[in-house]
């Protein structure tokens, strides 16, 4: 595996850094205050490669907080709301797209 930092970074628009929280695997986003949040609204948004690289580097370094960090596209709505930029990220943000078998509450 090449480390995510060695891979070529290509971004086409606003992006965030996302990962899974180490102790429980929950989807998290890197914040501007060097932390992680489960809410995409808190994510630090980057728009250029150097910024993205820096955000990713600090995220990867925090291996104890979250794992598998990578850069993911987002869309910024008119109100400034951050939304996932592709299907994969939509599924990560809002869960599976399928009907599960009914599980009694």
């Amino acid at each position, binding site marked *: 595996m090449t480390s995510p930092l060695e891979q070529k970074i290509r971004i086409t628009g606003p992006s965030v850094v996302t990962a*899974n929280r180490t*102790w429980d695997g929950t989807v998290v986003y890197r914040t501007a205050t060097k932390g992680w949040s489960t809410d995409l609204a808190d994510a630090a948004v980057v728009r250029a490669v150097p910024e993205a690289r820096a955000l990713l580097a600090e995220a990867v370094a925090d291996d*104890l907080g979250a794992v*598998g960090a990578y850069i993911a596209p987002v869309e910024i709505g008119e109100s400034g709301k951050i939304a996932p930029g592709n299907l994969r990220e939509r599924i990560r943000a809002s869960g599976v797209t*399928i009907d599960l078998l009914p599980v009694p509450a």
Partner: protein
Amino acid sequence: MYAYDEIDRTLIDERVSEFRDQVKRRLSGELTEDEFKMLRLQNGVYLQLHAYMFRVAIPYGTLSSKQLRRLAHVARRYDRGYGHFTTRQNIQFNWIKLADLPDALADLAEVGIHSMQTSGNNTRNVTSDQWAGVAPGEVEDPRIWSEILRQYTTLHPEFSFLPRKFKFAITASEHDRAAIKIHDIGLRLHKNEQGETGFEVLVGGGLGRTPLIAKTIRPFVHGRDLLSYVEAIMRVYNQYGRRDNIYKARIKILVHELGIEKFAEEVEEEWQHIRNSDLKLEAATIEDIRSRFTYPTYAKLPHMPDELRKAAHDPLFERWRKNSVSPHKVQGYSIVTISLKPVGGPPGDATAEQMDALADLADKYSFGEIRVGHEQNLALPHVAKHDLPALWKALDKIGLATPNVNLVSDIIACPGLDYCSLANARSIPIAQELTRRFANHDTADLIGRLHINISGCINACGHHHVGHIGILGVEKNGEEFYQITIGGRADEKAELGTLIGPSVPYNEVADVIEDVVEAYLALRATPDELFIDTVKRLGVEPFRERVYATR
């Protein structure tokens, strides 16, 4: 059923405490993710889109009711109340927390279940025929040998860091229900002229990016030499298998690059050195393992009990019986396959409630035993025929009597983009839509045996290459597209499917599959000609013409 002895119990307990220590070191920062990843994988823990995923082994697909209840407990206590049965006799939990895993493993260890080597570059769960020990005409119970192999491969000091994953499958029946030809090592149990048990050994099968059907490396390896022969194969692979590129690291590539003859020579040379080592299985050792398998004490029962005769008047019962009940080697008993493919449901999923209820039914009707097959269905292997009507009613109540086994809606599907971090496209919703399209049982019956397999990417976890119809998710400009193949099969006549045309977008997949099936209905020579035989007879072209004519 195999009953663990003190040695087996000690080993899995020691494994649990080792992993508990490893998780603790990970969560304290003593281990980096890079160091920990392989350790967690070797305990069946992946990181998926939403969470960690936990894969538990069900060696050769045999479970006791007590074990199934414990799986239900894990689903309920540590996960979201359901589990997913896979094509390799594993069950996966999708939402587990790393911090909870040691406890979950300890709960499972109490009933003799583990997750060792369900992932990672080591020998994986040894799979076998889900009807082992009960199928009529079977040469002998392959699970004895599966268990011998399970033990031999577990924490193997030489082969725990192979170039890539390594999978065994064993069958002892003429009809191969274990898909041995698409495994790294496939073993077909048979007897030589002296009546001694041995194996045809196949090597180098696999799907993924480079699908290859396994080749026979030796037509007969005596049972007592099984481990030394296998060790010779693995040693050659460990040393010469490619490690520079994970897509070329499976043994199939080594066999393919060297050629089967050359590879066989290398193995033969190595084998001659170790054939008479401590790996030679003494009769007493084999007996020892055999003696820890228990079999039910079957009653002497009539072939056609009154209960069955009476129930035959109920067309719904008859439909289920014809579809899901298979002959047993003992008169008066049957094997009942339980479809985990309800209309609109995710293939292979079962809720904790279903697992518990099924465990109770197994106690009542199947000597407390359950089987797991590679088609992502379950089975009750020893049901007295006179109990069939009552069992059917009980299964129906818990949503487990869908009479679609081996029919078009009995779809094998991988988790795809809903769960899997490697996916290009979703698999489960495609399967769900197809089960809705083919929900009418009369239509499905008319179509007959037809296997649809779906994978969300080229890793081929859903075995799309060997589906009669295979559906593979690919990505085109950020959109989900699907390639469709026909004519594959996974059994003793294993073959890879052929692409029928350009890939189609998500919304059109179900239409295309309907068209393929309609084309088959129009093209088949007689109503008994199966889909797969029609494709064999006519090739892909007539299908392509009909399906793509209007597209």
